[in-house]
């Protein structure tokens, strides 16, 4: 689509009426390496009135002729580059040759990748929190929202981040198991991954149909890396201290070969969140050969080996006690040094081989093979029959001793004072109470009689083997029709297991399931994580450092698709239509036989031990198996979309798109407890999505605007989570299906010159309503036995909760109001929102760029309507009713409402400058100060705990406090670069 437009608009569009002989010509090039920039928009104006416009050709050249003598302002804009305004004087009727019009890449956008985000440790909560990363094009909205909204963890249009399609070299690389965008695979390789093609919303892409939240294709081939040497040093106070990066790209040599290398290191901690640190390295190397512009072979490989510490959420009580909303409970001192218990350790090399064939300018065919492999580990504390080591464990908090509300039955005010003392003395004597006490964990292990570790650091692995094959074709059949099409195949086998990372001073860890031991302790066989080992050796396996234990299974995914899309163009009207169809299947393959779910032996017989049958069956009479292959779940998937656009005179464009998708659930949404067994969510079905948008765009004389209205309905999503349920005093699995969402809203982005030359004002607004529109159905089972606790019950208060009218009593307390008949009054049904993203996000920015390559930016941002992730348990009648099974308005009012975060205002500024030395060496800096008002009360996300507190009167439940993540206070990022 974009290419087509380029070709069309390379032609002069507007011409002055007067026949004049003067003009302007030149070549638009990248400031770096003088690479030509095609499709740059050039607008000439005089006294604020547009006089002429054109676009540069693929070789960067442009010509505007028939100009009258005089002074003109020339505005040059191009994707991924800063706008440039230069004065041009045409005199004596000559065509002024400007030679090179050099443009500077918009540096900011490129700095966004997943290392812009702290790793939120949501692991035990059942929730996920990944923001959308929007990459900039020339679109004002995407430019600002993509970078500026990242700190608040903005999700574009409220969509989950897995809806965003991320392609690498033409291959859709969203995680096979979870669907997430895999940015961490290449974070730190900003230079090699800089060249991107993006589409927005439903727009089809040329190397894949795309879904409804845009496509970002990272080219990553050596010839797209900017030519020359580039070095940069970056320091940053919110994430990691230092990033060093070096890049060399050859550009295309005379023999048709291009090669490029990019390496980087990111190290250190930050000013705000202790325990968060980076020790990450990254490399990229690629080579490409162009054979006579017809054949092109590319091979490249990259990885980001390293580790990073993660941040944990705590309750507001803890934050208030610590006097710090950025408190992180994951770390503690070991021998006086900060040690984080939750560290992500990755080394996942990706290798790509691509062949392109372009026999004519109208035909391009590509075949790509991509292989991702390696290790992805995440450490966490594990313990057996010992006190919970987490400092902010609820029993360590003041609220566990005393609560003002008597119904909590917590009245020990003196113990409350002890707990307060423990949390509010902020010195080293108390550090071991407020943070992990590593010294104690080691001492417990030292004391363990035969060296059995009671505390250990486990490392959970999700190790992928992901192979993709994709072939696609772009055929420009005529001036009016272009056909894109292709086929993709994905083979994924991901091993999930854990190993002992550190025995913390002990000699071994025992491979048993302590939750099983609690319930079935009398039968040792049932407590085994590896029953086969136990049956062969007569005792549980002792695990040494590095040994696998706990669980071990493969997630297998196969996905095959074919797709085609056509682009039609008739004058000012363009239209497109596309269709994709395929088959997605997945299954689990257990590698360990767990005592609880022994299944059948290799000969299909029931398993007995000690005279007892271990093989067990579910309610339908099927064997429950932990080992071996599960059923294969297969789904036909398809995707159809169409759109049209019409271009009016004067830079106006109107377009509309619509699409319908039928998508398979992901492996992680399907298996109820993949670590232990082959059971899947009941009624597993595909997710259906209908999405449509209408857009208006305007681009003229330095003014640029886009207004989009979108409407998306997502149906039949599933979700699973596992948690300890206090009503059953057991660890349970909670499966939920039939989750529907509706996302409707508008996006506005606008940019305009503002008084001074070089000064522009831009603004964006994202205003939407992202809500749940169904009450899903849930089933809850005992994790240990698969006994069904609750079956096919609606989650009654999921999509909304009633708001009762309140009245104030003379003593100041608030009660639910009643009418004359004693009935409670419902004022309205409060909708529940898709969480962890603002429903309203806005920014106004002033940009000032000087001819001397100084730039300044100041922007103000406002975010509102962000909500907390809901725990479905609190929306079930069972939890609302309490132990007496009676639902009262007071209980509904207390339990079911969704928390709305307070709005936030942020002020940010940037400054930068670059210098040229001998027209060869380029040196510069950019510095950004974010959250200048040092606002430390901005919640960016969090989750509700799933625990319940029984009331003193045993007639209702209270919630555990929710846990939150907060945004950093004032922070800076300074980047120095040197290029030649």
């Amino acid at each position: 689509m974009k290419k087509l437009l380029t070709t069309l608009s390379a032609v002069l569009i507007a011409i002055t009426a007067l026949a004049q002989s003067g003009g302007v010509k030149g070549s638009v090039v990248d400031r770096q390496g003088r690479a030509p920039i095609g499709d740059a928009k050039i607008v000439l104006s005089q006294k604020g009135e547009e006089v002429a416009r054109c676009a540069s050709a693929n070789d960067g050249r442009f010509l505007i002729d028939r100009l009258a003598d005089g002074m003109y302002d020339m505005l040059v804009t191009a994707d991924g580059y800063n706008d440039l305004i230069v004065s041009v004087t045409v005199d004596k009727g000559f065509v002024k040759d400007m030679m090179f019009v050099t443009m500077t890449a918009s540096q900011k956008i490129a700095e966004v990748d997943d290392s812009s985000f702290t790793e939120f440790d949501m692991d035990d909560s059942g929730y996920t929190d990944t923001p959308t990363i929007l990459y900039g094009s020339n679109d004002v909205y995407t430019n600002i929202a993509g970078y500026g909204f990242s700190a608040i963890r903005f999700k574009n249009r409220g969509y989950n981040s897995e809806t965003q399609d991320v392609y690498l070299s033409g291959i859709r690389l969203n995680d096979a198991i979870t669907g997430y965008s895999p940015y961490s695979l290449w974070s730190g390789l900003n230079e090699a991954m800089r060249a991107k093609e993006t589409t927005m919303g439903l727009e089809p892409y040329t190397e894949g149909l795309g879904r409804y939240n845009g496509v970002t294709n990272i080219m990553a081939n050596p010839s797209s890396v900017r030519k020359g040497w580039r070095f940069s040093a970056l320091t940053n106070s919110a994430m990691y201290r230092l990033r060093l990066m070096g890049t060399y790209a050859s550009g295309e040599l005379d023999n048709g070969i291009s090669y490029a290398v990019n390496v980087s290191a990111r190290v250190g901690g930050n000013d705000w969140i202790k325990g968060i640190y980076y020790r990450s390295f990254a490399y990229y190397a690629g080579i490409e050969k162009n054979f006579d512009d017809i054949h092109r072979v590319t091979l490249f490989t990259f990885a980001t080996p390293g580790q990073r510490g993660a941040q944990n959420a705590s309750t507001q009580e803890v934050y208030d006690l610590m006097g710090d909303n950025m408190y992180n409970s994951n770390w503690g001192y070991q021998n006086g040094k900060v040690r984080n218990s939750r560290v992500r350790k990755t080394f996942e090399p990706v290798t790509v081989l691509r062949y392109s064939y372009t026999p004519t300018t109208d035909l391009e065919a590509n075949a790509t093979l991509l292989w991702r492999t390696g290790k992805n580990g995440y450490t966490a504390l594990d313990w057996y029959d010992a006190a919970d080591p987490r400092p902010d464990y609820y029993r360590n908090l003041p609220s566990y001793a005393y609560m003002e509300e008597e119904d909590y039955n917590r009245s020990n005010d003196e113990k409350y004072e002890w707990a307060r003392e423990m949390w509010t003395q902020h010195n080293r004597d108390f550090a071991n109470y407020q943070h992990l006490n590593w010294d104690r964990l080691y001492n417990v292990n030292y004391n363990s009689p035969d060296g059995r570790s009671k505390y250990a650091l486990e490392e959970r692995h999700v190790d992928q083997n992901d192979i993709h094959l994709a072939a696609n074709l772009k055929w420009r059949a005529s001036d009016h029709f272009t056909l894109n099409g292709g086929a993709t195949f994905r083979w994924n086998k991901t091993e999930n297991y854990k190993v002992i990372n550190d025995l913390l001073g002990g000699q071994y860890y025992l491979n048993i399931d302590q939750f099983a031991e609690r319930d079935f302790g009398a039968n040792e066989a049932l407590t085994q994580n590896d029953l086969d080992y136990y049956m062969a050796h007569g005792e549980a396996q002792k695990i040494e450092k590095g040994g696998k234990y706990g669980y071990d299974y493969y997630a297998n995914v196969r996905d095959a698709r074919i797709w085609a899309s056509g682009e039609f163009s008739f004058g000012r009207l363009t239209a497109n239509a596309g269709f994709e169809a395929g088959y997605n299947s997945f299954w689990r393959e257990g590698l360990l036989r767990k005592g609880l779910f022994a299944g059948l032996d290799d000969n299909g017989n029931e398993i007995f031990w000690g005279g007892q049958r271990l093989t067990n069956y579910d309610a339908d009479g099927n064997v429950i198996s932990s080992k071996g292959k599960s059923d294969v779940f297969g789904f036909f998937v398809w995707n159809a979309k169409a759109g049209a656009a019409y271009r009016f005179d004067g830079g106006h464009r109107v377009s509309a798109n619509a699409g319908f998708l039928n998508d398979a659930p992901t492996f992680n949404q399907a298996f109820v407890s993949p670590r232990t067994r082959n059971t899947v969510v009941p009624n597993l079905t595909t997710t259906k999505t209908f999405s449509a948008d209408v857009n208006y765009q305007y681009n003229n004389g330095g003014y640029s605007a886009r207004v989009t209205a979108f409407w998306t309905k997502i149906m039949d999503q599933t979700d699973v989570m596992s948690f300890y349920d206090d009503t059953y005093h057991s660890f349970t699995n909670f499966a939920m299906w039939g989750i529907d969402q509706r996302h409707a809203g508008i996006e506005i982005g606008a940019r305009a010159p503002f008084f001074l030359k070089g000064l522009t004002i831009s603004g964006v607004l994202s205003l939407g309503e992202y809500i749940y529109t169904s009450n899903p159905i849930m089933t809850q089972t005992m994790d240990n036995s698969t006994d069904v606790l609750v079956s096919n019950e609606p989650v009654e208060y999921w999509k909304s909760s009633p708001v009762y009218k309140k009245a104030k009593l003379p003593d100041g307390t608030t009660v639910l109001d009643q009418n004359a008949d004693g009935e409670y009054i419902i004022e309205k049904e409060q909708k529940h929102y898709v969480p962890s993203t603002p429903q309203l996000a806005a920014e106004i920015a002033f940009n000032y760029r000087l001819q001397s390559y100084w730039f300044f930016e100041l922007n103000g941002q406002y975010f509102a309507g962000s909500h907390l992730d809901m725990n479905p348990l609190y929306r079930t009648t069972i939890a609302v009713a309490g132990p007496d099974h009676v639902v009262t308005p007071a209980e509904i009012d207390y339990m079911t409402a969704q928390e709305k975060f307070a709005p936030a205002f942020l002020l940010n500024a940037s400054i930068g400058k670059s210098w040229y030395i001998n027209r060869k060496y380029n040196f510069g800096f950019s510095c950004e100060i974010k959250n200048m008002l040092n606002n430390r009360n901005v919640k960016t996300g969090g989750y509700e705990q799933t625990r319940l507190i029984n009331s003193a009167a045993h007639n209702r439940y209270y919630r555990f406090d929710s846990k939150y993540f907060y945004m950093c206070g004032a922070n800076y990022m300074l980047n120095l670069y040197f290029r030649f």
Partner: protein
Amino acid sequence: MKKLFIISAALLLLASCTSLKEEFQPVFTGKYKEPDKAQPAQMSANTTIAELAAMYNGKPWDIDKNIIIAGKVSTTDKPGNFYKSLYIQDETGGIELKFGRNGLYNDYLPGQTLYVKCKGLTLGMYGFSSSASYGGNGMVQLGFTDPSGEYETSYLENPLLIDQHIFKGETGTEVASEVITESQLPGKNDTQKNNRYIGKLVTLKGLKYANEAFVLLYINSNWDKKSPQNRVFLSPSNVASDPTAGITTWAMSKAKMTEYLTSGRWDAFRVGSGNTYTGETVGDFKGEGSYPGFEKAAYSVSQYFKMGSKEIQIRTSGYCKFSDVEIPESVLSGKSTIDVTGILTLYQGNIQFTVNSIDDIVIND
């Protein structure tokens, strides 16, 4: 203009040099050195356990004197029969420290000397009954104040509170039990003050099964546990014809409970507390092949034995690792006697005996 900017920037940089040094503190990412072993506390006691127990005068006492006691840890919560607390003992007696935390044996090793700075803690009694017919003393314990009034002491729970009052001394050999005779058993109004075996690890020999068991079931453990509507006593006073309720194990795990309930074995037992029955029976709560009303929980069981003429209740937790161990048939039939080692306690004047592990029960053939 440009020069001015550069100069001021340079000045700013210089001024912030010290803070920059702070700013660029490297994060340690190397190999962490293993921490040193904790050193034992050097303290000495100024009061014996019996002397401390003697200071209990019938109501909880928030200790305001500089009393330090010392004793060796005599129990372990490893097999799970002791839970959230442990006993220490000196020559004069033993006392329970109500820690209120799990996995105490990881931090407080059996045989290790503990020093307790009692000031700020509360001395109270658990299990006292004033009833003339069956009443008597319970056990004097050390815990924290309990303003709810539910018990005389509450659990310590808070790590700071614990660490400021209980200090770990030298580790040592495990406590050896003392074999005592029937005449040395405490009377119903005794405390550590007048019987030096109370709260200590002792061995009782030649116990004979008394053909009686006791379990308190809750219909739903999320309901009020004190309400008669929520209680079922499996005891001879409920169904006189079934004094053992068919229980042949030391305690009952969750699984064992479910097994008994669903067999219908207990259907006749009446719901109620003491002698006030609600009119309902366990059988009334029967659902489709299960008893959905009953919480699927494990339960403590008291098995009654006789030491000569004295009744000894061996009370065992349903959550302990040996809860479902069968009492040998020869013991149940009265053919064999047992020797048991455990902590000797009083509950409402009766002797309650708690073992550390199943190995503490020896069957005499």
